[in-house]
Each structure stands twice: as C-alpha cells, then as structure tokens.
C-alpha cells in the first residue's frame, strides 16, 4: 500500500519537478556559473574571473542607483498598494450598492499587460492629462515621466492603478471569511467600528496580509515591463530598476558574466526579503 502511495506521489511530483528543474534550477545554476566569468554572451571563451564581478557590483554607481530606485519603488508600492487594496476591500465588503461594478472596474486593469499599462500612462501623462490644463487654464504638472524628481511618483500611480484591484480581491476574500460572530462579540463588549477593525478584522486578515505584502514586494523588486514601455529607465537613469540594469548590462552591453552576477544578487535578495517577510508576518497570524 505504501509503495503504491509512493508511486502515485512520484507520478504527481515528477512532471512538475522536471519542469521546475529545466525552467528554474538549470538556468539559475548556469547564471551562477556565468557570474564568475567575464563572458560577453557571444564568444566561445568564458574567462574565469572569480568573485570580481560581485566585488565590482558594489562599486558600480549605475547598479547602486538602480538598486536604490528599486527599493524606493518597492517600499512605495508595498505601502500604497496594501493600504488602498485593504480600504477598497473594506468599502466593498460594507454592502454598498453596485459593488460588483466597482469590483470589476478595479480588477480589470490587472488583466492588461504591464507593457500596455506603461504605454497608456505615458500617453496619459504626456498627452491626455495636459489637455486638462488647456481646458481649465490650470498649471498642474502632469508630465510626471519627464523629470527625475517625479518619475517615481508617476510609475507608482501607473503600477498601483494596475494592481490594486487584484490585491483588493484577496483582501475581500479574507474579509468575507472573518466570522460575523467575532464582530458581534466585540460589539457587545463595547468596541466601536475602528476598534473592531484594528482588533478583530486586521488580526483575522493576517494570512491575506502575508500573501499581499510578499506578493507586492517581490513583484515590485522585479519591475521591468512597465518601465520598458513608459520611461525606458529614464529620464537619464532615474527609473532604471535592477532587472532593467541587468538586461542592458548583459545583453546590450555584452557583459553577460557581469549581468549574471546582478541576476544572482537579485535572486538572493528576493529570497531573503520573502523569507524575512513570511517569518515575521506568520507569527502575527491568528489560528482559528
């Protein structure tokens, strides 16, 4: 019986394991191997340089700038997207009229490719919104992608517009699974709406918060496609993310080895951040 179970287990696991190995493990292993070479991506020779690429990373101003941009983008996204998604979820869970329409309207942007979203917001900031100034005679600066001081704000608007609806659905599902009697009991104990939200709803939503925080953080650390169609990492280098910098270094700059070192560093960073977040957030989850 145990043997049969084991065979069934293998039958289910092996296809996934093969795909995972070919798609993730092999490329990652190759990346690690290339990261200790100065390979240009074209030549047959792959000269071994040891850890030099990793040492150079920490002296590379362009990489450090890309790192800081990615961190700022990630922090901004994680805070704004979680807060907005939770607020929208609470609003839609409160029994307002036409909530299905609102839910659909908020969710639809996440069905669009990030490339299209980038292009749409480039046009919005450059062509559509400035028309408002012409119509009303106002002087609002809508050219957010045109300056290094405002480009981060513009990208946060575009990214949040796309993804808030998606995370809102996760919070909404979490809210709908909170037992009503907990709220009733808190009410009987004299808790007002705000107290009930922070002392009943939020603790019960902890699993959803874990999913959303980790998902938004790792997604933001990997931002690339939004930038390709909107700012192309500019103006100048003001919105170049780590992945974007990796791509232009490895492919356009023909420094495949150095680019691989960037990739390995990013993967380690993603793992570390995800582990820290999951560990700290899991401790706060309430077990029913």
């Amino acid at each position, binding site marked *: 019986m145990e043997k049969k179970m084991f065979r069934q287990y293998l039958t289910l696991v092996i296809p996934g394991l093969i795909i995972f190995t070919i798609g993730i493990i092999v490329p990652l292993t190759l990346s690690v191997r290339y990261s200790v070479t100065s390979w240009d991506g074209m*030549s047959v020779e792959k000269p071994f340089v040891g850890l030099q690429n990793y040492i150079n990373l920490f002296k590379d101003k362009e990489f450090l700038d890309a790192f800081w941009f990615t961190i700022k983008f990630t922090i901004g996204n994680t805070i704004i997207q979680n807060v907005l998604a939770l607020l929208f979820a609470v609003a839609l869970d409160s029994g307002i009229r036409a909530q299905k329409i609102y839910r659909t309207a908020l969710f639809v942007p996440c069905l669009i490719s990030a490339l299209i979203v980038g292009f749409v917001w480039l046009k919005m900031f450059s062509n559509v919104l400035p028309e408002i100034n012409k119509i009303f005679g106002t002087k609002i600066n809508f050219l957010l992608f045109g300056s290094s001081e405002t480009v981060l704000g513009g990208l946060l608007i575009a990214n949040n517009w796309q993804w808030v609806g998606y995370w809102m659905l996760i919070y909404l599902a979490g809210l709908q699974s909170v037992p009503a009697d907990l709220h009733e009991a808190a009410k009987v104990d004299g808790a007002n709406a705000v107290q009930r939200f922070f002392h009943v709803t939020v603790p019960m939503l902890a699993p959803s918060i874990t999913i959303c925080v980790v998902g938004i953080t790792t997604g933001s650390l990997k931002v690339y496609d939004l930038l390709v169609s909107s700012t*192309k990492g500019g103006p*100048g280098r*003001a919105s170049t993310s780590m992945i974007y910098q990796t791509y232009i270094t490895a492919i*356009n700059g023909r420094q495949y080895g150095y680019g691989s070192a960037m990739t390995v560093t990013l993967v380690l960073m993603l793992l570390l951040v995800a582990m820290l977040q999951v560990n700290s957030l899991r401790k706060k989850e309430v077990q029913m």
Partner: protein
Amino acid sequence: MKKKMLCTCMAAAMAVSSLSGFAMTASAEDEAVTLTVLAGQSTTDAGIEDMIDEALAKVYPNITLEWECVDWGNDFQPKMQQYMQSGLPDIMIGKAQDVATYAPQGILAEIDSQYLDAGLDAARENVTIDGKTYGLVYNALYQGVYYNKDMFAENGWEIPKTIDELQAIIDDCKAKGITPFASHMVDTWSIGNVTMQFMMNDVFNNDPTWGDKFRAGEVSFSTDEAAQTAYQYNKLIYDNTYEDTFSLEQTDCDARMVLGEAAMKVSGSWSIQNFLAIDENFNFGIFPFPNQTGDSKLIFEPNITIMTSASTEHQDAVNKVLEVLTTDKDLAVEIYDYTNTAAMLKDVTPTFPNPSQEDIDKYAADGMIVDVTLGNNQLVWGGFQEENAKDIAAWLMGDATFEDALAASDGRVDASSAS
C-alpha cells in the same frame, strides 16, 4: 543496321537522361523552402516585409520567408545573441554597423559579388572586413538639421555653417517667439543619435581612429576638447527646445515642427515619414549641424543591410532572395518610397516627394557627405553610445555634472568596441 540501332538507342538514352535531368532540376527548383529572417527594423521599415514577400512569390513561389521583425535599437542585438547560441536565421537584416559586430565571430557568409555589384560602391567599405563583404546595403538615411524652408525664407535666415551663425538664428528665433529646435528627449536614442552626429563632424572627420585611440588610452572624453564640444551641443539643443522635451515622443515632436512651432530639428530621414504624413506639402530642407571649423558634412547612414548566415542549409534559396532584392527595381522603388529613404542600388531612384533632396544633391556634388558607419564602428551603439546618452540626459536635467557624464563615458571604454 546495327549501327543505326545503336545510334538510336544512344540518342534515346541521352534524350531520356537529359529529360530526367531537367525534371530533377525542375523539382529541385520547385522544392518548397522556408527561410527564416530576423529583421531588425528602424521606425521607417515596418511593412516592407510584405512587399518583399509579394515580389518573391511572383518569381520564386516555392520560397517562403518566415519573418521575425524586431526593433533594431532594442531587440536586434539580444535576438542575435540568442540565435548565436541556438542557430542563426538564414537571413538577418540589420544596419551596416552590425557587420563589424558579427562578421569577426565567423557567423556571417560572404555576399556574392554579383549581388553586391548591383549596389553603390559608397557603402561597401564599412561592411567589408579583410577584403570580404558581409553585408548588402539596401538603403540609406540622411542625418543633419532638418529646417523649415518657408520659415527660413520668411525670416531671411541663411544656412549656417558655423556655430556663431547657428547661434544668430537661435537668438532671432527666440526674439520672435519661435522654438529654435524641435526635440524629443524622452527617446534617449535620439540623444545618442544626435551626439554621434556631433561627434562625426567635430571628432571623427578630423581623426577617424579616435575610438581606437580612446581604447588605447591616448584620448578620453574627460580630456579631449573636441569630444567635449560634441557633448556640449546637446546643451545647446536642450536650452533651445521645448520645455517638455523629456515627455515628448517623436510623432508629437515632428507634428509641432510641421505646424511651425519650431524652426529646426536635428534628426534623420526617419522624420520624413512623419513630416509628409502630417502635411504632404511641408517644405523642409537639411543641412549638417555646424562644427567648430565650419566644414561639417552631411551624414548618411547605410540602413537596411542584408546579412546571411554562414551555416545556412539553403544557400541557393538565400541567393535567390538576394537576386530579387537587387534586380527587382519596382520593389526597390516601392520600398524607398514607403520608407522615404535614399537608394543604395544603382540606377534606382525613389519617386516620393522629398523637398530636402536638392540640399542632399548639393552636398553630394560638393563631396560634403560622410558615412556615419565610421563613427558607429569606432564607438558602438549598443552598450556604449546608448548608455552615454542616458548620462547626457542626466546631465541635461541637472542630475549629474558634465564631468560625471564624461567620466561615465570614459568608464565604459571596454564596451566601446564590437570586438
């Protein structure tokens, strides 16, 4: 009788064998072949693949081209790197400067002289390495300062040859409320492009091996005055263009130029499509961006350059495609008219209205035209020029100093060469 029978048999055998031979040849010719094509296209080129397919189908219906069209600036090099690992397409269409990048890797086939002879000699030099030509240059773009001819005539402005003369026009423009230059710096490539135009006239025209000296440590951006001057011209443009240039795309920028909001635009033939699409009567000319010595030349860039794989299994079919491209003059004119570009085939003249053609002819007659492939081979686009452009943009916006931008270019010296 025996002799007669023998002769008849031999004649019959010969007839049968030649017929069967003919049949074999015919079947080989008719054998369906699919050639893969990687086309790195400029903004002007999208759509020419249908024209080539149509022309090829008329002559060689058995040959099918399987196109993969990508943006040359962003995607051609990544695709080539990918295919160098997995196997090259049969035909690759890029720019002349790609030959210097890929031919030394031994992956390109030499182009047969029967096809090369159909083209102008002017562009052959920069696609020839060690006496072997690896690229067939099909068309060319001109680069310089496009100007509104009517506006120049109305204001009595002469074509400037020196920076002082250009500055006088800029000052007059500003006094009259005209934006001197149209520009779209949201596209960082446009900064890289104009910087190479400046470098050609102030650096490479005087020292064609400046890039080699740069790599040898004999010159640098931080120490070379001419190179610094070329970078500084970007500031001249930035100070005299639209405030929203870092939010403005090419189409909108070209539209403003056509609508008379700006007097000049440092650009290339790729703007002509937009100019004429917005107003087919727009009257524009072109002159080279003035340099310090007043002898700047109009720049031409061999654009569509056909390269073939050294390891193709269908060399005959590839040659037939080259044959169609070099002998079908109707196809050539159709492509030149569609892309609004100049012919690089002998005895083929585009028929699209090009008000700047008389300027081009004048500079050509005076020998004041230079091939930008020289500069692009000395300092490559991918990984060097396009990265420098980002630093120049950062400097223009005040996020970095001029010295930072120069130092960044110097620090990128290892990426400045294709080999």
